[in-house]
């Protein structure tokens, strides 16, 4: 039987964990620099065997993002992308790679505007497996969760260093697919160093929750992967990949794949 949505994401992360392989979740912004390039990038990324792919839909006012992704959003928006085209892109990819889960990262206004029900029903048809919405904290997520109830799409909440363990427990219960732990107080972007107490925090959180714990923000180097892989079920890498696209443009595909393979080999 074939899995989809939250189940597919969880199963795949767990299968990586079981085999002792590092579960990476690469992020890129769709339509940066254009639609066909994004499709090429996804194929190269797939060859590096990610645990899941996080594909951003650009929003004009990305408050959770640092300069690297902000610039990607500007490049992407030059194409005036619609959410329909985004779903087409996902469906095209899923035809060749049905086992690699794709989650959409976008801001709430895009989904609000498209319609909550419409977003979820069309996400299913296209093969999209879940959503990460950084400006939708759980207090505001009621309508979104109700529409998705019993339908199995991944609803991934972000937990932060300021959250406190009680909130994190609650978020983990509402999250389907994985829980996204934000490594630091700040915005997205590659960092030279990650906070020293991060591994301790991850250890505490992991003992409290049942679903896979993914950590993101700042992860950009082999040593980060080495430091974090014993303490998290999956690692999210975004800005480091996006800056490769910034530099290489449409021909960034092979470099993206190579970078991901380097990170995956951190422990060998």
């Amino acid at each position, binding site marked *: 039987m074939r899995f989809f949505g939250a189940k597919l994401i969880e199963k795949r992360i767990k299968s990586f964990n079981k085999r002792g392989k590092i579960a990476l979740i690469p992020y890129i912004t769709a339509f940066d620099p254009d639609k066909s390039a994004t499709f090429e990038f996804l194929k190269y990324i797939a060859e590096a065997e990610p645990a899941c792919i996080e594909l951003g839909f650009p929003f004009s006012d990305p408050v959770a993002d*640092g*300069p690297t992704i902000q610039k990607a959003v500007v490049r992407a928006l030059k194409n005036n992308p619609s959410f329909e085209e985004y779903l087409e892109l996902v469906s095209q990819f899923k035809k060749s790679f049905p086992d690699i889960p794709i989650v959409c990262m976008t801001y709430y*206004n895009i989904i*609000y*505007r498209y319609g909550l029900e419409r977003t979820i029903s069309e996400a299913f048809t296209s093969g999209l497996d879940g959503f990460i919405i950084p400006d939708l*904290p759980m207090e*505001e997520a009621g309508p979104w969760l109700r529409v998705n109830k019993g339908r199995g799409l991944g609803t991934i909440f972000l937990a932060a260093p*300021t959250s406190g363990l009680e909130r994190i427990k609650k*978020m983990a219960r509402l999250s389907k697919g994985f829980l996204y732990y934000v490594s630091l107080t*700040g915005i997205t972007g590659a960092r030279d160093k990650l906070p020293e107490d991060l591994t301790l925090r991850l250890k505490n959180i992991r003992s409290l929750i049942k679903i896979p714990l993914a950590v993101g923000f700042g992860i950009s180097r082999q040593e980060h992967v080495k430091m974090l892989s014993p303490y998290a079920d999956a690692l999210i890498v975004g800005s480091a990949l996006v800056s490769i696209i910034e530099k290489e443009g449409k021909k960034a595909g092979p470099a993206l794949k190579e970078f991901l393979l380097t990170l995956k080999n951190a422990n060998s």
Partner: protein
Amino acid sequence: MMYPDKRGYFGVYGGRFVPETLMPLLFELEKAYSEALKDRSFWKEWESLLKEYAGRPTPLYYAKNLSHYLGGHIKIYLKREDLLHTGAHKLNNTIGQVLLAKKIGKTRIIAETGAGQHGVATATACALLGLKCVVYMGAKDVERQALNVFRMRLLGAEVIPVESGTQTLKDAINEALRDWVTNVKDTFYVIGSVVGPHPYPRMVRDFQSIIGKETKKQILQKEKRLPDFVLACVGGGSNAMGIFYPFVKYPQVKLIGVEAAGHGLNTDHHSATLTAGEPGVLHGMLTYLLQDKVGQIKGAHSIAPGLDYPGVGPEHSFFKESGRAQYVAVTDDEALEAFQILSEKEGIIPALESAHAIAYLIKIAKDLPKGALVVVNLSGRGDKDVASVREYLEGKK
């Protein structure tokens, strides 16, 4: 029913749509503010600073010449917020928020600014109360409002130009939010209008309501009755909410918010969010926005830099929907004409923002019933606009 409700909603508008990192900070702020609400010494300090330092109460001035010029059948009063220290109503709010920040032990203040008025008012409050101040300002606005940038620096603030997006107010807010997400421990974000996540729209409304409270008292003294119409310009909507709010419970008082129609509502160059926008989520709130079909936020335009914002306070969205207030828009040209008329007839050079409210009054005056009592919130003075108006008028010739 009191608004906002416990979740920060005015009807269906408002809320707290922010990254998780900020949620615990908003809870902390909400708690600190509800404690301050009960703390009489807090409000006493605020009131005494507004009186001794800032010059409250501001006069409610009977604009006899303007009343006469517009037909003589109506009586127009101007609430003179232009006479408040720093030249606009903004200081009512910044003194309140900076006092609150100090009370809860924050040492660093951040703020956004468009034209620079809120930035100047925040820098002023920080200088007065001894806190470090960082102001985010769109790079385009830094260029257009060089004098206000210098004023802020003179007041000891650090001004950071924002190069992202449209390089205007909305991007300055984005950047301030990013700063806040990063510096969660020592930093307090002083928002300049009735916008943003709960509890900001409520808090700013409370601080600005002093305008309407004074107006009510003053008009009852002078005219022995409430006004028939209260007009104010609406960008984010803080001066309008400030003068509207104490009149909300009197249905006989008609409340009119005047937005900026820029080059015209049929163009892409306006800031008439309530008149021409649609609901969506930006800067932590569900409210009317200027946006495209996909949900990307559009750039706003107005000759008045303080109205140049693609969102609006959620309580205004609520008033629009409930019908408690009416929202209309006037163009750049109409505002410019009003700017000149008020200067000539009354010897008061209004801020271009406030000129929008005057312009709408000029437009409808002849249709108002005889004896109508009208109050316009003159939210700021026009010194800051004199150079750009001159350029505009000379360019037109």
